[in-house]
């Protein structure tokens, strides 16, 4: 679909080698290396303060890393930027900003428009059809502070989808959303996977990992393990990741893992 992918037909969507991030000499992400396989839904999990968001941001160059390399489809992030979509944490922006849902989604196209070109009818149509996809078409003209948390999250997802990327980074998209939104996000992840896209999701709810994700990365400053969910999402490795902060509780006769 892209020139570059023809040049590197076998290049992984994301290859991170030895990335280290430090805030004032204190390492928050230490020597992390992993490779994501194409067309998978990948959960990045770990306790609070494990550096999940930081790892995501360092991969995107949003926080400086003191060591390590990132390769996206076999090339640098700078060159492959247009193939990457990013969904930041919902709290990272001011929802009182004077704008509506449709306008926020259109911002996803700004990267494609270049320096001077303004968003026009094509961008508007694309944004509108993407809002439809996330079940938010009726709220297109709604001021963003008038949306519920789940609706805001769906607007953020739509903004990333409209980028038409191949590799998506999502920072806690399930945090504080309603059941309808959670379902909408899951349906969307399924569609992305079916279209051969790769999605890396910072995830908190351990009870849904096996249901939602093919692949997991377990992080606690260092990478504890990475691999397919069946072989990597095991009680032993989870204990290693969460330390004493993990409890295994049994409810409705079914075992569930509760992080913190």
């Amino acid at each position, binding site marked *: 679909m892209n020139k570059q992918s023809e040049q590197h037909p076998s290049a992984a969507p994301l290859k991170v080698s030895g990335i280290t991030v430090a805030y*004032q000499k204190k390492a928050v992400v230490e020597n992390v290396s992993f490779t994501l396989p194409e067309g998978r839904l990948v959960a990045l999990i770990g306790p609070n303060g494990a550096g999940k968001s930081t790892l995501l*941001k360092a991969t*995107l*160059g*949003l926080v400086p890393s003191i060591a390590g390399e990132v390769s996206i489809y076999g090339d640098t992030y*700078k060159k492959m*930027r*247009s193939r*990457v979509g*990013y969904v*930041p944490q919902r709290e*990272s*922006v*001011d929802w009182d*900003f*004077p*704008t*509506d849902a449709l*306008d*926020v989604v259109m*911002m996803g196209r*700004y*990267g494609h*428009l270049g*320096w*001077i070109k*303004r*968003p026009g009818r094509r961008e508007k149509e694309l944004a509108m059809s993407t809002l439809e996809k996330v079940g938010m078409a009726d709220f297109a003209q709604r*001021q963003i502070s008038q949306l519920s948390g789940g609706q805001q999250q769906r607007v953020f997802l739509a*903004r990333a989808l409209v*980028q038409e990327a191949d590799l998506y980074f999502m920072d806690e998209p399930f945090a504080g959303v309603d059941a309808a939104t959670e379902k909408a996000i899951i349906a969307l992840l399924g569609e992305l996977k079916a279209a051969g896209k790769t999605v890396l999701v910072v995830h908190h709810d351990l009870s849904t990992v096996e249901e939602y994700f093919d692949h997991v990365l377990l992080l606690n400053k260092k990478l504890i393990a990475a691999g397919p969910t069946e072989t990597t999402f095991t009680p032993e490795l989870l204990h290693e990741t969460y330390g004493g902060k993990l409890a295994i509780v049994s409810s409705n006769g079914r075992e569930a893992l509760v992080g913190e």
Partner: protein
Amino acid sequence: MMDFWIILTAVLVASACSILGCFLILRRMALVGDAISHAVLPGIAIAFLMSGTRDSMWMLLGATAFGLLTVFLIQTLQTSGLQSDASIGIVFTALFAVGVLLISLNAQHIDLDLDCVLFGEIAYVPWDTWTLGGADMGPRAVWMLGITLTVILLLMGLFYKQFKICAFDPAMAAACGIPVLLFHYLLMGMVSMTAVSSFESVGAILVVGMLIIPAATAYLLTNRLGVMIGLSVAAGIVSAISGYLISYLLDASIAGCIVSVAGILFILALLLSPSHGLIAKFARRREAQAA
């Protein structure tokens, strides 16, 4: 004719400030605007000393350089762990003090009155004219403000989408490949230019009012950024013209009247805005209680 130049100056100040103010308050940087408007003083003084004239280009350059230095110093202090309000307070008062020192030490070389620095005197604008090759080109302040407003309209017109996304979601903007830092400094550079060109007309204190009050008024009245900028400029221009007329009737400070009118418009918006207004909120609460 005098009235015309004064009103034109006031309208230019209001327009430039009202546009930039929208971005400042949305980025929660209203106080940085305050800081810049004071910290450009040493830039003006140094430009005076170096060029030995009231040459506008030197003043614009010197002041803009100091405006950007202010922003850079504030950020440096913040990243080294100081609170952001403390960083702003330290940098701008220190630079303003340097400016005051430079002016008082070189009083015989610098034709700048410190009262004028703080409060401005827009009534003098028509007399301070720019002569080019012996020809009278009109008031210097009008030229400086005109250039500043042209730069603002040009940059905002070309890069509106970048300024908007950098204000709403800088992380997303950076991930899209938009040079967030460049647009940050462009905005700050424009604020510095505006601060220095408004300096002699409205002074270092009242320019902050023109930066923040019309934009805050517009913020209460709309949910769209484009409309907010338009309303902000409208509020600024209405304040400028009616402020001038009121000052004429009362025989009071022109800049003081202009900013006072801006304040009255803000209070009206605060009370009457259909979405954010106190009266509408009160009515909604009553309705909810009744239901």
